[in-house]
């Protein structure tokens, strides 16, 4: 068989296209997007800086295990939206930080930095249960104005979704991840004040606010004298 001098032969082209298609058939890409509601409830009386790193905002989980197809799951945009919304509603004031620890605004009392530790998922074929399941683990860090660590805690989120007729695996997995992200937001909001280091900061802040309120009428009265 004579090969042409320039470029690939027609047979080589067909083989290459077929190989690309076959490789593509075993690779799945999931782009998770979504809007998340703001939590309903009281706000903590703190001015908080939120630092979502590049790695966090563009996080893509890649899995290429021998017994599974290749999966690329992009949760960065969705988790950025979730943390911005939830943390943005949890405190009386929030400051998004584009860098940390440089150029920290003076009024920030606490800086919160989330990191993805782990993401796992299972398919109905693997568990023989008719649902897609996702687990995400976040490492949460809180620092004071001087950059000292105040608290480190872990948020474990779980999401599942039933298989649905005419729905692709990618769509089902994206839906399960969205449920897991909502769960992460719920745990973050409801569990924040239970973290020992943070509970102490909140109690201290409440005390100082109460003292200020108690002092306010006295100052006014003193001003009138």
């Amino acid at each position: 068989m004579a090969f042409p001098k320039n470029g690939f032969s027609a047979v080589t082209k067909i083989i290459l296209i077929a190989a690309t298609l076959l490789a593509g058939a075993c690779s799945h890409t999931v782009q998770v997007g979504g809007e998340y509601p703001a939590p309903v409830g009281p706000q903590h009386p703190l001015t908080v800086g939120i630092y979502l790193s590049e790695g966090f905002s563009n996080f893509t989980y890649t899995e290429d295990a021998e017994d599974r197809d290749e999966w690329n799951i992009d949760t960065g945009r969705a988790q950025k939206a979730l943390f911005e919304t939830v943390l943005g509603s949890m405190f009386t004031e929030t400051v998004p930080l584009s860098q940390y620890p440089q150029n920290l605004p003076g009024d920030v009392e606490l800086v919160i930095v989330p990191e993805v530790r782990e993401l796992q998922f299972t398919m109905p074929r693997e568990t023989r249960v008719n649902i897609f399941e996702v687990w995400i683990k976040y490492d949460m860090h809180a620092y004071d104005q001087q950059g000292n660590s105040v608290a480190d805690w872990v948020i474990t989120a779980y999401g599942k979704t039933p298989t649905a007729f005419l729905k692709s695996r990618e769509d089902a997995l994206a839906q399960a991840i969205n449920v897991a992200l909502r769960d992460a937001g719920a745990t973050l909001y409801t569990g924040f004040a239970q973290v020992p280091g943070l509970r102490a900061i909140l109690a201290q802040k409440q005390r100082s606010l109460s003292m200020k309120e108690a002092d306010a009428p006295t100052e006014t009265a003193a001003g009138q004298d």
Partner: protein
Amino acid sequence: MFRIVFAFALAVLSGCTTVVIDEYRRSDGELAHGDSVVILGRRHSSEYETEPDLIDCVGNRLNDPERGVKVIPEQQFVDAMYPWFEPRTAPMHLKSLDRLMEIPEVRDRLEAYGVKYIVWIDGSTETTSSAGSIGCSIGTGGAGCFGFGTWDKESDYEASVWDFRDQELSGKMSADAKGTSYMPAIVVPIPLIARVQNNACKGMAAQLQQFLLPGQPVNSKS
């Protein structure tokens, strides 16, 4: 004439389903003008998930503002109350709902929605057994399938009706549906599907309607 033939064909071509409805009622429904009903699915079990489409189905059948039943869509309500009705945080008992009401922002929002009843539906539809096989082949002369397949489905749902204002359990009802679907294939597969989940939805919606609008005829939406 065409309608009759179409309806007859549908009846012949669909599998059989039986539905059993049970009810325990502590009080009759009392919906005043402006009151609304929320229908929510329980999602706390790790082994199954109450299907969102079943919740939508019951809600759509029940929603009839002209007769005084205004149903708030599940997703809209869960978003508006975030994060208090998520699978992990949703109140499992009336006492937990009582504790939730201690948060002023949550209480205000629930009152703004005019919520009178919260209906929790728990359960799922599962394929319990299947048998038979169908083989399809394609050749130069054409393509075709031959064989026979059958599968059984079971729906098991329970609805608990909470009276949000009086903080009490107003009633419970359950819908159990079973059905067998068939798929004979002689060149072309002919699915004879038993609409098990849909029939459970219809039964539960009719029962809830009787509870919410006592003494009024059941409005059967298609």
